[in-house]
């Protein structure tokens, strides 16, 4: 029996709580459990995480003729240089890139970073040394195909995410008590960025008040990067203009116990994001018992599944407000939506399924030459 080929997992940044980092760590567990000698290499490594610096990657890969799994999450010069120099088979794990247009006029730094990411993605899509692409969703696979990637080399596997940590985490007791006294009608979890639909969330809350005479209590969780200050100021300005200050709670970035408390004290998950490569919070919401109301942008529809309440991308703010109102009022509808979301997640995103897809991709890439 032949020894499985070694695997080098390469990514720009390995830090705790980051979706790309979690996926890379999960992938390393999967490949190691399948008998592959596995090593993670990253540009930036947070203390205590099991990885080596990117500078050591080429030597390790060439000595072992290892498979290279490259996590494409941003434009990265050191990563590009490695891919140009290696003779080993390359597998691209695509995490999608937020379109740069969202950052126009918001942040020069983010605009440049997303443009660099888009350029790397365009080049990799037609790079003949890439044996296989593992896209995080059918939406991402479609984008890669439209950039020129060969459909025969495209595979789809959801990001690996330590859901069990969230499931077993104890919620922050103080916050749980406070929030339970004033539960949110709708929760959104996602970093504070222009593609995430925060302005839409506020408009929907205001429309809800116009149509139903009561303000929608929103809890908005997510990291507020100081470099996107202008965007955050605009959102706060809109919140004041719409007279929603008392019904919208911006929590900022939260740790796992606070995140758990936020999910447990909210009645619905509302997602008005305009671009998602997968949207892990939708899976977290399903796992922790929240039905979702969402707009069909990017991968959102395929992540929630056909039985979920995914409104067309063209739906107006009134329709979203009505969808929320109906779902909040009707416990049977909420239960049915949640059951559909959970069944879809079980059927498509279980760790075993994702692991199987990843190992198939590695086996195929290892067999086809190199």
């Amino acid at each position, binding site marked *: 029996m032949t020894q499985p080929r070694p695997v080098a997992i390469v990514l720009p940044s390995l830090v705790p709580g980051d979706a790309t980092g979690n996926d890379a760590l999960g992938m390393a567990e999967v490949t190691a459990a399948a008998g592959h000698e596995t090593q993670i290499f990253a540009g930036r490594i947070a203390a205590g995480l099991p990885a080596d610096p990117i500078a050591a990657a080429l030597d390790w890969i060439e000595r072992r003729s290892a498979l290279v799994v490259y996590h494409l999450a941003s434009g990265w010069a050191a990563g590009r240089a490695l891919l140009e120099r290696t003779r080993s088979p390359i597998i691209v794990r695509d995490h999608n890139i937020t379109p740069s247009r969202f950052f126009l006029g918001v942040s020069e730094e983010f605009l440049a*970073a997303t443009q660099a990411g888009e350029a790397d993605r365009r080049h990799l899509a037609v790079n003949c040394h890439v044996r296989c692409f593992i896209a995080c969703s059918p939406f991402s696979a479609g984008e890669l195909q439209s950039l020129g990637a060969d459909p025969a080399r495209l595979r789809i596997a959801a990001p690996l995410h330590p859901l069990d940590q969230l499931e077993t985490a104890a919620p922050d007791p103080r916050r749980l008590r406070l929030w339970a006294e004033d539960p949110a009608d709708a929760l959104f979890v996602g970093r504070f960025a222009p593609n995430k639909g925060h302005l839409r969330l506020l408009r929907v809350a205001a429309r809800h008040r116009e149509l139903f005479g009561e303000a929608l209590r929103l809890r908005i969780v997510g990291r507020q990067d100081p470099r996107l200050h202008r965007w955050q100021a605009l959102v706060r300005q809109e919140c004041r203009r719409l007279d929603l200050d008392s019904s919208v709670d911006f929590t900022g970035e939260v740790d796992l116990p606070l995140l758990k408390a936020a999910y447990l004290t909210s009645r619905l998950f509302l997602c008005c994001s305009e671009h998602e490569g997968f949207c892990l919070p939708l899976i977290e919401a399903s796992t922790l018992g929240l039905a979702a109301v969402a707009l069909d942008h990017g991968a959102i529809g395929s992540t929630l599944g056909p039985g979920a309440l995914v409104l067309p991308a063209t739906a107006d703010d009134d*329709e979203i407000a009505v969808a929320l109102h109906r779902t909040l009022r009707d416990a049977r509808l909420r239960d049915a939506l949640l059951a559909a979301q959970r069944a879809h997640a079980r059927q498509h995103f279980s760790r075993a399924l994702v692991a199987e897809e990843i190992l198939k991709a590695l086996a195929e890439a290892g067999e086809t030459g190199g």
Partner: protein
Amino acid sequence: MLDRAGVGDDTIDIETLLEEIRHEAETLRQRAGASRVGSNLDPAELLRKLADAGPARPAHSGSLDHDQAIARMRDNADPQSTALGSHRKVFASPILLAKRILRRLLSPFLEQQARFNGANLDALVDLGRRLDVLEQSLAHQRTRPADGPEPRD
């Protein structure tokens, strides 16, 4: 109202549900009249609003707005410094006298409130300074070359 969407038997006809939602939204909007909320901002309007939203640099707690707000609060921190007056022409003098007597009677409580307000403001200024340090350290960490913006979702 939800029966047509088939929720009763634990399966949902999403298309029917969406159709019902569209219909209900139209009906409710007709009843409520035109919305004053506004709709999706076009890119030009968004850019104008962003420019109005201030400079690209974070407005941390040491910003002009924050300092001005603290100064305004400090101006009003001592309830005893409130100027007494009366808008009445005929009874102005007795009313003013009554107010002065009341203020003197309440002075122990007002002094305590003034001390409390002052301590609160000092704590707020201190928190602002600490927040400045944290934000600067965070900005420094996040602008290191290996930790650029996150271009993915």
